[in-house]
């Protein structure tokens, strides 16, 4: 087999951080090649360099034996390389056909009929079906993923980079995707699959390259005699054996938060949460496992007082708070670690000190009457930064001077401050390394135990929840599923609940 893509000695620095250090990647033609690693291992950075979206500081890229240096995506596309990034590049306001053509139009004048015929031909080849004149905004996640693949074929890409293609898909749609990808590989196309889902790698790929901390760790063929197993891959990815966390059992205290048959409307008018009931007790950390987009967001919105509750109620310490707005909820002790800290959790232009009060600004002792207590705010900021050892150069510096992980530490610590009652954490460890992840969960548990507080943690990583939470429940299609007695720690059983296969 011939090598079609060869990257050698690729190095890339962002300021003082070396994101990629002398990384090599050899990909054979007509294969599905997996690129795996933790968040922040450098997978996406490496792929963006290959696709011309980013410059390497050092290293050589060869495509089909020729040395290449792509200054932008257009040049990469011209050489037959295409990429589907994790966040789709589909523009919802354009039609499916317009999205397909954009950037690779058939000519200055667009004959829609001819273009549509060609598009249909491509789709039929892959076994897809599209109504081409419909706005792309109406596509399901799986439909959007299919359109992204057709966009690559339209551009006659022979080397396709797919970044976490199954992250937003149901298991059935994911399986269907791999059928298509195998068909493409059989036709001679090359696929580079960026993923962190090991079963995908072992089942569907023929080679795997593992990155850790911006360096090559391993390269292996799959399906031959030296095939690594999942444990071996996991060890390569993580670097050392993952310590089994021993959570001390907790005797459930009295109930704090009680959700009764809650139904919530989503942004698009659909019923996103369909009758969820759940009771949380003092000292308890409950994990909410589920694939992204199954009602987690809407449930949290209802709990912080900004969602549209259709029916049901939320009780806090026995009191009905369903109709209370966000200000009252904050006063009652509801705290949120939001999903997207840049957009939702901090004001990046503000100093750490100002950010410390964000969300707590109306609470004593930060407030006295109409006035801000500046001394208290400074003291709180210091305490928050101290808690998870946030690395910073001074409380007066803007938040944007902190790295992503340190911002996340800051936001998490803030949610634990000023006597919370319920902590709602949406992917609280996103962007954190393992050490940071462990610290956040430990602090969460410790706060819950010590102050008699409860917490709900949403994560798309079931393993993390099973290791770190007292109890795990699954959410699927807006409904909640509690594992059967005896299966509370059964990964497979909860996994089935998550995808509605139980």
């Amino acid at each position, binding site marked *: 087999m011939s090598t079609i893509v060869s990257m050698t000695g690729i190095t890339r620095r962002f300021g003082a951080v070396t994101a990629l250090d002398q990384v090599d990647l050899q990909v054979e033609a007509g294969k599905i090649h997996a690129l795996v690693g933790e968040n922040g291992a450098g997978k996406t950075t490496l792929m963006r360099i290959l696709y011309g979206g980013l410059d390497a500081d050092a290293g050589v890229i060869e495509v089909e034996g020729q040395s290449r240096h792509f200054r932008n995506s257009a040049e990469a596309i011209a050489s037959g390389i295409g990429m589907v990034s994790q966040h789709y590049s589909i523009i919802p*306001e*354009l039609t499916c056909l317009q999205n397909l053509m954009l*950037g690779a139009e058939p000519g200055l004048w667009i004959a829609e009929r001819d273009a549509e015929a060609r598009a249909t031909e491509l789709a039929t080849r892959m076994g897809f079906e599209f109504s081409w004149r419909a706005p792309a905004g109406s596509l399901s996640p799986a439909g959007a993923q299919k359109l992204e693949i057709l966009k690559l074929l339209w551009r006659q890409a022979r080397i396709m980079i797919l970044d976490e293609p199954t992250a937003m898909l149901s298991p059935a749609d994911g399986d269907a995707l791999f059928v298509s990808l195998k068909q493409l590989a059989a036709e001679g196309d090359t696929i580079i699959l960026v993923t962190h889902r090991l079963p995908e790698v072992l089942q569907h790929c023929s080679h795997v390259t593992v990155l850790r901390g911006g360096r090559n760790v391993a390269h292996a063929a799959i399906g031959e005699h030296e095939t690594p197993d999942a444990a071996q891959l996991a060890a390569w990815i993580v670097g050392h054996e993952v310590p089994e966390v021993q959570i001390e059992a907790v005797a459930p205290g009295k109930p704090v938060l009680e959700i009764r048959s809650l139904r919530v409307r989503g942004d698009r008018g659909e019923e996103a949460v369909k009758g969820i009931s759940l009771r949380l007790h003092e000292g308890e950390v409950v994990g909410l496992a589920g694939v992204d987009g199954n009602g987690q967001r809407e449930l949290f919105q209802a709990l912080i007082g900004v969602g549209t509750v259709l029916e049901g109620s939320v009780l806090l310490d026995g009191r009905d708070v369903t109709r209370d707005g966000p200000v009252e909820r904050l006063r009652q002790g509801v705290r949120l670690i939001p999903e997207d800290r840049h957009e939702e959790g901090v004001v990046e232009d503000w100093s750490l000190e100002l950010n410390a009060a964000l969300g707590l600004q109306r609470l004593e002792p930060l407030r006295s009457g109409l006035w801000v207590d500046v001394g208290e705010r400074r003291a709180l900021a210091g305490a928050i930064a101290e808690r998870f050892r946030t690395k910073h150069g001074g409380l007066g510096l803007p938040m944007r001077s902190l790295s992503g992980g340190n911002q996340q530490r800051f936001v998490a610590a803030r949610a634990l401050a000023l006597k919370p009652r319920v902590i709602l954490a949406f992917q609280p460890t996103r962007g954190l390394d393992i050490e940071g992840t462990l610290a956040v969960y430990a602090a969460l548990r410790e706060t819950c135990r010590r102050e008699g507080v409860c917490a709900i943690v949403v994560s798309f990583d079931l393993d993390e929840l099973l290791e770190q939470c007292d109890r795990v429940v699954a959410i699927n299609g807006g409904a909640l599923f509690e594992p059967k007695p005896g299966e509370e720690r059964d990964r497979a059983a909860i996994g089935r609940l998550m995808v509605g296969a139980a």
Partner: protein
Amino acid sequence: MGSFDLILLLKTAPGLSLALLLAAMGGLTSERSGIINIALEGKMLISCCVTALMSVAFGPWIGLLGGIGAAVVLAMLHAVLTQMYRVDHIVSGMAINIIAFGASNFLDKKFTDINRTGEIPQLPFEFYYVAAFALPLVLWLYLRRTKGGLRLWAVGNDPDKARQMGVDPVKVRYLALLATGVFCGLAGAWLVTNAGRFVDGMTAGRGFIALAALILGGWRPIPAALACIAFGLLDSIQLQLQGSKLLGAGIPSQFWNSLPYLATLIALAGLLGRNRAPAGLGKP
């Protein structure tokens, strides 16, 4: 005068719509590419002034080219500021209006030849009529049926995703603003041709009315053009009512002048249907 003359109304309305049509189409290319354009007024005004000065000196064609050139210079300044210097679209647009107002006053006061204050040489009116009424149709086809139109639409909706697809948003926006300059230049040249001479601030808010028409028309060429024609009609009704003894003559002209703005305000309040602004309007 004295009675309501429908024929006269239909004769004057197209002339009053012309500048609005041209400027609104200039606004369309700009805003479709994602650049908020409150500087149509200034681009028109500078063209009025330069067209007048250069027509007197070099004849009507050179005058027209000069006017267009001046508007294009301001449009390119707008492009450079928003794309290269990342200045806010509104701030740069406002600054361009201030500059255009000042510069046209300065040029007019200092360079108008006092010995030749008569009518400036004119191009035939038909030239402007054809240009203004064909333009919305041409743009409609361009947006629906061409590569450039698709890219313009895409960049205005989401510049980042368009870039991922190999479209260069900056290039698209420079071209869009170039078109804005040309169309606003034409609009200004028509105004000064129609009026016969340059007067300080002679655009009198037409750039903002054109923007209003663009919004009322949902950022689409044909509806925006219809809104321009409606505003032109309104203007001509108001001119007729002045000095006539008919019903409505007691209403001050200021009321009629406010109507386009009021209609747009109501449209913005969503009382005339959904807001259809390009999704990426104002994004860097």
